[in-house]
């Protein structure tokens, strides 16, 4: 029997993997991938809490997940446009080499 805790554990694991990737990897695209994974973990939490919550007929969790997916799509488009612009300027996507504002 799958309980709410199972879904929350999968979501927590997904969030931690995304966080570890976003902090560890030095390629800007992979950092964005890590952030997308963290957003998806949050979406899974919305849906799981909606399904197991007391008032599933209110559709609040589903609506929040739909709007979250929309915002994430906008974020991915702008983020990748920024990465491509930075690549044109610095000829690299390695975050350690983009350090002209380092103090």
């Amino acid at each position, binding site marked *: 029997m799958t309980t709410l805790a199972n879904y929350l554990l*999968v979501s927590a694991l997904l969030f931690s*993997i995304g966080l570890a990737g976003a902090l560890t990897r030095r390629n800007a695209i992979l950092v964005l991938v890590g952030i997308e994974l963290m957003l998806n973990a949050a979406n899974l939490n919305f849906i799981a809490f909606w399904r197991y919550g007391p008032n599933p007929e209110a559709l609040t969790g*589903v609506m929040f997940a739909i709007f979250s*997916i929309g915002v994430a799509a906008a974020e991915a488009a702008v983020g990748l446009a920024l*990465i491509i612009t930075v690549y044109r300027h610095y000829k690299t996507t390695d975050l350690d080499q983009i350090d002209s504002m380092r103090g």
Partner: protein
Amino acid sequence: MQFAILAVLTIAGAVAALSLRNLVHCALALTLSFIGLAGLYLQLGAQFVGFAQILVYVGAVAILIVFAILLTRGAESISQPLFPPTWVRSSIVAAIVFGVLTWAILSSVEFRHALSPEPEATVKQIGDALMSRFALPLEVIALLLTAALIGAVTIAIRERREAK
């Protein structure tokens, strides 16, 4: 059983997406993880969100990431080390976050109750809700997507104009 398969698919895809060396392989593993998540949504009874996940993430975001990888020639620069010097600290931070979340989930009795009867979340109901109760957020998200579209094009086109 289905849940276990989908969970393993999602987690394995996520791990592979952030640990493989070739960036194109990373994008493909990320797609696998998104498909697993869509399966989890479908299993939770949220059909519309599951198909929106496939359309938006598998169809659009993954393709966008592949385009970005190819445009920045990321597939060629696989010489960088997989574990930079900061990876120990980063992994400790992520492990602490996972530990705290797991402790919070497992220590709560509230999360262990079984499934309530299948809620109704048909596409018609979602459409009705979007057009009545959630009309204002829908308009806001439309404005946001338009702004993101214009912003992404403006950001990506600027450098070329300066170069001329």
